[in-house]
């Protein structure tokens, strides 16, 4: 029987609600971005984000339900991001979901935001398990072996900045504006990627980890070398050089993970890219060069489902609901929540790895 889930997302600077059914129909998908509120600060301010979420979330839920032509009684569950993310925002979405479930006697599913990204390709492309996931966003950069719902093994992660964070910081240094990722991509189209010799941090290392802080420093030095007179072409060249360096690093690290993944899952040649940076076409093209060569299928959900949204939350909720993995009303919002801890593993503290 078809099941229907309402999804709620509020872990960063997007307030979102969506209704999705188990036949992979996205019945509604409402996203309100807070970009304008945070733009003057050049980054997401947690308290400003929390204030915006509480002001709009209930109205967006009503909109999503109306657009889907679904009544609360028709829902089989409500799913909300329970972490990782900015705790103030996560708490608003999670408490709202708890309230709806309590008022309508529905099961609650408190979700790991990364799991929602990880399972999006099954909503959009019906991808079978297992697959290799490259999760690249403003808060995360990791390679994960996905063998089933609730079964994730992290193969590598960033030791410092997330890849989207590196894009935003590079854009900020060049004064391009916020959020930086899309602006760097646009500027890079008119740039010469060979002009600046930037490093490829971690390339060739005997693991699948990432590091972007050195690249950030190199962008700063390149800017200094141009001096005060940097023009649009200089910025375009630097953006292109930066983006090419990021692409090379992601390709190198992913290629290594593909080797490991294929050893464990022979024949399962599937690479899924998810997260906001997956919306970057140049990065997608760079990664397609390695998947083409090694016979991997490359699956990238459409851009609107790569950036934060609630349809992915609703879908992941449906996947968990099918397995009876629901949450208690006392579930807590979590700022940090590594994906592979879902399957029982826990992070060792102070290893330098980010969730």
């Amino acid at each position, binding site marked *: 029987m078809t099941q229907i889930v309402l999804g709620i997302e509020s872990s960063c600077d997007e307030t979102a609600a969506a209704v999705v059914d188990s036949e992979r129909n996205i019945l509604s998908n409402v996203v309100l971005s807070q970009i304008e509120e945070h733009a003057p600060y050049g980054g997401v301010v947690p308290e400003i984000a929390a*204030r915006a979420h509480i002001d709009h979330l209930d109205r967006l839920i009503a909109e999503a339900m109306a657009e889907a032509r679904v009544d609360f009684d028709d829902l089989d569950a409500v799913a909300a991001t329970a972490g990782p993310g900015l705790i103030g925002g996560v*708490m608003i979405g*999670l*408490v709202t979901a708890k309230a*709806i479930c309590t008022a309508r006697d529905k099961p609650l599913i408190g979700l790991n935001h990364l799991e929602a990204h990880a399972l999006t390709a099954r909503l959009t492309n019906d991808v079978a398990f297992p697959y290799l996931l490259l999760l690249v966003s403003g808060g995360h950069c990791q390679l994960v072996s996905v063998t089933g719902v609730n079964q994730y093994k992290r193969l590598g992660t960033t030791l410092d900045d997330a890849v989207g964070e590196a894009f935003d910081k590079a854009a900020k240094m060049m004064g391009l504006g916020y959020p930086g990722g899309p602006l760097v991509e646009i500027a890079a189209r008119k740039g010469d990627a060979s002009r600046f010799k930037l490093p490829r941090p971690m390339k060739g290392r005997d693991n699948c980890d990432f590091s972007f802080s050195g690249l950030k420093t190199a962008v700063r030095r390149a800017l200094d070398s141009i001096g005060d007179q940097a023009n649009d072409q200089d910025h375009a060249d630097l953006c292109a050089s930066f983006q090419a360096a990021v692409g090379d690093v992601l390709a190198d690290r992913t290629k290594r993970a593909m080797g490991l993944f294929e050893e464990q899952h022979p024949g399962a040649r599937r690479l899924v890219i998810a997260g906001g940076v997956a919306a970057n076409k140049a990065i997608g093209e760079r990664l397609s060069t390695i998947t083409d060569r090694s016979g991997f299928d490359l699956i990238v959900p459409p851009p609107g489902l790569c950036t934060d949204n609630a349809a992915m939350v609703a879908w992941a909720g449906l996947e968990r609901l099918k397995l009876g993995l629901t949450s208690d009303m006392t579930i807590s919002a979590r700022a940090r929540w590594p994906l592979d801890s879902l399957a029982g593993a826990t992070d060792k503290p102070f290893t330098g790895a980010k969730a």
Partner: protein
Amino acid sequence: MNILSFDTTLNRCSVAVLAAGQVLAHKFQVLQRGHAEALMPMISDAMEMADLTFSDLDLIAVTTGPGTFTGQRVGLSAARGIGVARSLPVQGVGSLSAIAYAARNDGHDNLGDGDILVVLDARREQFYVQHFPADMPIYPAAYLPQAVATNELADLLPEKTCVLVGTGAGMAMEMPGLNRPGVRATSSPPEADAVAVAELAILMVDRDGLPTVPPAPLYLRAPDAKLPGGRTL
């Protein structure tokens, strides 16, 4: 009118269910953190105790603040979540008004002809303050709540006798200019409670009708955020 009310703005978590002005259920606990986890089970328990279902409710009432930002948003998320799920109106009630209402009505203390000055400890050397003159109703309030520097509280003190109530009342009595005849701290509860929230909501609805838009938090403080170069907006 059947009302579900709750408060999570400070170091308590309280829930009440009222029908025709009578308290059918009342639950509370002292809680410095964990409101987001404790609230829903308390609401379910209170509804069960009152033998009401959510479809029996006519109104949700909740404190809007001031208080802790997280606490305010937990209460409002819950209230607005129930509101949207059940198409119920949500009445916001000021936390300082709820404290003053209880002080005036619950009989803990004979306030005499004293004005009420609700004083919350807002940290960072500030109080959240609201003045309720003895001859004026709690709602509509004569004065708005405001944030003041702790050492400037005396400027807000009414001329005549005045009773201080709230989490900052004891601390306030130590401040310059407060220790004078006619000014005293009360033994009334220093924090808002869901019963007073519901009773105030009834007064508000009687006067203004049912609310048509959901309430927003009352912060009294801008977010901590610095623009590039350390400026603030």
